[in-house]
């Protein structure tokens, strides 16, 4: 009964706006900016590159954000997970890139800060960084760890 009454909105939308097979713009792809020095001229070009993540992507079953749907409880020592949300200079990626919900984005940015302070991602730091955590200034050179239960998010 219920199914009979339910109006087929999706079918209507599909009929009104059929899938466009022709594309007017070049297909969007992940790009990397490369600088090549050829003699006296410097060539700066945007090259299409594969992200290399497709074969290893986790499959999500529901409409939640990637972390909520995976049910992971990420710790600040899980650098293999945290480094996926970080640029090459160690900054957290914005939410429009990560696609996380507000809560998980906040939590992940705190985890990134914790991992950086503990010196667990020394290869993902700004170019001016000394890289080695033991060369940091003052008390920051000594080992420290963090408690994830201190992360307070609404």
């Amino acid at each position: 009964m219920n199914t009979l009454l339910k109006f087929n909105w999706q079918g209507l939308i599909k009929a009104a706006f059929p899938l466009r097979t022709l594309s007017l713009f070049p297909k969007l792809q992940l790009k990397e900016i490369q600088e090549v020095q050829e003699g006296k001229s410097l060539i700066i070009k945007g090259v299409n590159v594969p992200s290399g993540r497709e074969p290893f992507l986790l499959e999500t079953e529901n409409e939640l954000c990637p972390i909520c749907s995976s049910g992971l409880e990420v710790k600040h020592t899980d650098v293999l997970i945290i480094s996926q949300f970080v640029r090459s200079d160690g900054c957290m990626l914005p939410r429009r890139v990560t696609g996380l919900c507000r809560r998980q984005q906040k939590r992940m940015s705190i985890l990134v800060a914790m991992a950086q302070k503990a010196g667990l991602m020394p290869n993902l730091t700004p170019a001016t960084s000394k890289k080695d955590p033991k060369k940091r200034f003052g008390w920051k050179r000594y080992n420290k760890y963090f408690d994830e239960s201190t992360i307070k998010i609404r």
Partner: protein
Amino acid sequence: MAALKRVQQWATFARVWHIFDASWQNPFESAQVLKKYLMGLYKPIYHPMNECGDHVIVINSADIALPGDEWVKRVYFHHTGYPGGASWTLAWDLHKKDPTLVLKKAVYNSMDGNLQRRYTMERLHIFPDSKVPGALMKNVSNQIRQIRPMPKRLDEYTEKEVKEFPKIIDLPKDYILR
């Protein structure tokens, strides 16, 4: 049976030498574990008047870890006895002067102040790195399990391990790599 009992007898009355790797361990949590071995609290023959404690060798005490910003919050007090002789030293300052002292004081303060405490501390051998004199090392017959797992840095993984680890997100198609 008699032979087993005899060995049990030897094991009970022998002074066992333990080794403990302090890298990435909280010294105050470790002190609660180490004091059991130093005082012999785990032995069936334990009694406060019975000196049955073991020796403990602690290595890598320079690599101990404190939670959060405790390196600048924990303060060690000393008074020379003269007027104006009070001094307060931050934990990281003390650790810079002598990388064994924070752990040594943690174990010392974890035990009750009685006449045995100084003698119990004599059985604790702390080394800032993993270099232990061979004369001590050849006595060791047990390793004490670490309390918290040692974190692995991102640059210690191979490139293949990082690349083939399951990925949670993919970068969007209109993103420019930086």
